C-alpha cells in the first residue's frame, strides 16, 4: 500500500497562475463567510428585541372555552401556509366522555385474546350503548349525501371536493356521475363541555377509592 504523507510545513517553491487563483478563491470565501456571520448576528438581535417588546399576557378567565387556535407556522415556501393545530384538550375531553359513558379506554386496553365471543359481546353492548349516548349528546351528525348508498349520483362543476371524494376511474370533466359508495358523515353541531381553569384534562378517568 502506498502511504501519502502531507507535510504542512511545505511552502510552494514556485508561484504561478494556479497559485494566484487559489489565493483569490480563499480570500473570496473568507469574505462571504464574514458577511453571513454578521447578518446572522444582526438578525438574531432584531428577533430578541421583538420578543421582549411583546410579553405574553395570559388572559385570565374563570371558564376556559375550547376554541381552535390557529397558529401561523413559518414555512420555507414563499407563500405562507396556514396550518391549524388542534388543541389537545378537546381530544382529551372526547376520550374522557367515551370512557365515562362507554368504558371505551377500559375496552381498548383489555386483552381480547383471553375471552370468548360471548363475553366480548356483552362488553361490546356497554361500549356501543355508551358511545352512542356520548356521541349523540355532544355531536349532531348527518349524512353528507342524502342519496341512497349504491345509487347513481352526479356531481356538477364546482362541487365541494372536501365533502365528496372521487375514486376509481377519474377522467374527463365535471359533471361526474358515479355510484355513491358511502354516504359520508358530517357534524352539523357540536356541544363539548366547557372546562374550568386548572382542570386537568389529562386525567380522563379518576382512580376510584371506596371508603
Amino acid at each position, binding site marked *: 500500500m502506498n502511504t501519502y504523507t502531507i507535510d504542512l510545513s511545505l511552502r510552494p517553491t514556485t508561484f504561478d497562475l494556479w497559485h494566484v487563483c487559489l489565493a483569490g478563491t480563499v480570500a473570496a470565501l473568507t469574505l462571504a463567510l464574514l458577511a453571513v456571520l454578521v447578518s446572522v448576528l444582526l438578525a438574531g438581535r432584531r428577533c430578541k428585541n421583538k420578543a421582549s417588546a411583546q410579553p405574553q399576557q395570559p388572559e385570565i378567565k374563570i371558564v376556559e372555552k375550547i376554541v381552535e387556535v390557529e397558529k401561523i407556522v413559518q414555512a420555507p415556501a414563499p407563500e405562507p401556509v396556514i396550518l391549524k393545530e388542534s388543541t389537545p384538550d378537546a381530544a382529551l375531553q372526547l376520550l374522557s366522555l367515551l370512557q365515562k359513558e362507554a368504558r371505551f379506554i377500559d375496552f381498548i386496553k*383489555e386483552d381480547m385474546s383471553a375471552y370468548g365471543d360471548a363475553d*366480548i359481546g356483552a362488553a361490546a353492548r356497554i361500549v356501543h350503548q355508551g358511545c352512542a349516548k356520548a356521541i349523540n349528546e355532544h355531536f349532531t351528525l348527518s349524512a353528507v349525501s342524502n342519496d341512497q348508498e349504491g345509487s347513481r349520483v352526479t356531481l356538477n362543476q364546482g362541487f365541494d371536493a372536501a365533502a365528496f371524494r372521487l375514486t376509481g376511474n377519474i377522467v374527463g370533466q365535471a359533471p361526474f356521475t358515479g355510484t355513491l359508495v358511502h354516504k359520508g358523515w358530517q357534524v352539523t353541531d357540536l356541544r363539548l*363541555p366547557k372546562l374550568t381553569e*386548572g382542570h386537568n384534562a389529562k386525567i380522563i378517568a379518576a382512580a376510584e377509592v371506596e371508603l
Partner: protein
Amino acid sequence: MTQEARYSVGIDLGTTHCVLSYVDLQAGDDQPELLVFAVPQLTAPGVIEDKPQLPSFMYLPHAAEIAEGSTALPWSGKAEHLVGEIARNLGSKTPIRLVASAKSWLCHAGVDCKQPILPAEAPDDVSRVSPFLAGKAYLQHLRDAWNHQFPQHRLQDQDLTITVPASFDPAARELTVEAARAIGLGQAVLLEEPQAALYSWIENSEGDWRNHVAVGDVILVVDVGGGTTDLSLIAVTEDQGNLQLTRVAVGDHILLGGDNMDLALAYTVKAKLEQDGGKRLESWQLQALTHACREAKEKLFNQPELENIPLVVASRGSSLIGGTLRSELTRDELKRVLVEGFLPVVGVGDKPQSKPRSGLRSAGLPYAQDAAITRHLAAFLSRQMGATDELKDINLPEHARFLHPTGVLLNGGVLKAGVLAERLMQVLNGWLQTEQAPAARLLQGADLDLAVARGAAYYGHVRKGKGVRIKGGTAAAYYVGVESATPAVPGLAPEVEALCIAPFGMEEGSEQELPNDEFGLVIGEPVRFRFFGSKTRRDDAVGTRLEAWSDDELEELDEIEITLPEEGHNAGEVVPVFLSAAVSEVGTLELRAVSRRDQQRWKIEFDVRAGEGN
C-alpha cells in the same frame, strides 16, 4: 320592578328535574314563541355543560373530595352548592351525601322544612341541609344562570311563574314563595302543574283548542312525573258566549312516579339474577341495573318489534370484559311489572290499599303504599263526584257513581310510553262504559316532558290578558279546630269542631273575615290551632262549624301557630281577635288574626311543622 318585564319566565320546580322556559313579551301578540333555557351546570368536577333540565339534586361534598377550583361556574369561581347533574352523578356513588326529592318533603306533615334534616340517612359527620334550602338552591342556580345569559334582563325584573303540584297544601305553597323571595324573586306567582300542562296544550294548539273541547266537557289531567302523580279536573263551561275553563278538583299528593317503575323493574331482574346464579347483588350493582332497566324500558316502549333487551352491568374495575353481570328484560316482564303493576284493570269502586304504618313516620317520605295508579284515579273520581254540581253546563247522569271525564290530558315523561297511556285510557273508558257514558278522548299534541315549564311561561302571557285563563281559586276549603262549648267530661278530650275559615274556590286577591268568632290570644304566648283541609266540601261558607266529619272528608294538616308580639302591649295581656283569610295574588293562602280593638293584624304561620312527633 325597576323596568318593564321583557320576558315571561316559567319555572317547573320538579321533584326530579327543574326546567326553565321563557317567552319574549315584546315579540308580538298572536303566537308567542316559547323557548326552553339551556341551563349551564357542572356535570363532573371541572366540567360544565348546558342542559335543558337541571336535575333537582344537591350534593354535600366532603372537604377533601373536590379539588380547589373545580366547581367554578360561568358566574362564580366556586359554586355555593353542588346542584344539578354533578350532584346526581356524585350522589349515585355516595348516596349518604345526596339530597333528593327535597320538594316532596315540603308537603310532608310532621316535619319542619327549615330544619336541616336532609339527607335523611346521612351519618352525623355530614352537615345536613333543610328541604327549604335545597329548593332555594335550585332556584338560585336557575336565577344565576339566567342573569349570566341575560345581564340586561335580570330574572328579578321579569314576569315569573313557578309551578307547584296541585296537591301542595298552603304551607308548602308558602314555603315555595318564601324560597323565591329569599333570593330576590319576590315577584314570582304560583301555578298548579296540571293547569300549566293544560295551558301548554292550549298554546301548542295555536288557537285550535276551541275545536277540540266543547261546553260540558270535563278534562282530566293525569300528570305522572318522576316522583309524584298529580290529578286535576278542569271543567269547560260557557260565559257570555266564551268558553271558560274552571279547575274544579285536585287530587291528593301521591308519591308515586317513574322512578318507582324503574326500581320495580330492577328488583324484578335482581330476583331473576339471584335465583339463577345464586349471587347477591351489591347496592351499586342494583343502581347500575336500575339505570340499565330505565334505558331498556324506553327502548322496549319505543320499538314494539323488540321482544327483549339484554342488560349488562359492568364491573367497577378497569377490566370490562369478564366481570360483567348479564341478564335481560323481556316484554312480558315489562308488561307484567309496569302495566299490570302500576296500571292494573280495577273497578271504579276500588280503593287504594293502605296498611297501618309501622315505626317512625318522619324517618322517610310517606311513599304511596299502593303502586296502582288506576286505583288512586278511581278513588279520586269517586270522591270528586260532586265537583261539578254547581256548574249548570255539566250534567252527570243520575246513576253515576263517579265523575265522568270526557277528555284526558296526559303529562309527565312516564306517559310517553304508548302502552301505559293506552292502558290508562282503556281502564278509564271501561269505567265509563259500565255507566253507559261515552268514552273519554285523549287530547293530542302535548309535549309531556316540557309542558309544565312551557305552560308556566305562557301563563305570564295569559296574565297580561292575552288568551283564556283557567279559573280556579283554592282547591280546598280550610278549617281550624276549636273546642266545642260542651261541658267537660272527665277522662275525655274535649270535642273539637272544625270552623271554616276559607271556603272552597276562594279567588286570588279576595279576603274573608270571621268577625263572629272571637278568640282571646295571650300576648307573648304562642297559640296553636289544629288545621284541616277538605277537597270535597264545596258548600261550606266562612264561619260554618262542623261537629262531625268522616276521615275521608277532612284531612288534618299541620298545626298553625300565632304568637302576638309584645310591642305596645303588656306580656300576659289577653287580646280579643277574630280570624281572616285571604288568597294573595301570588296564589298563597294567608291567615291573619285581627285585633277587635284597633284592627291590628298579625300573620298566622303555617310552617311550624316541628310537631310533637319529633
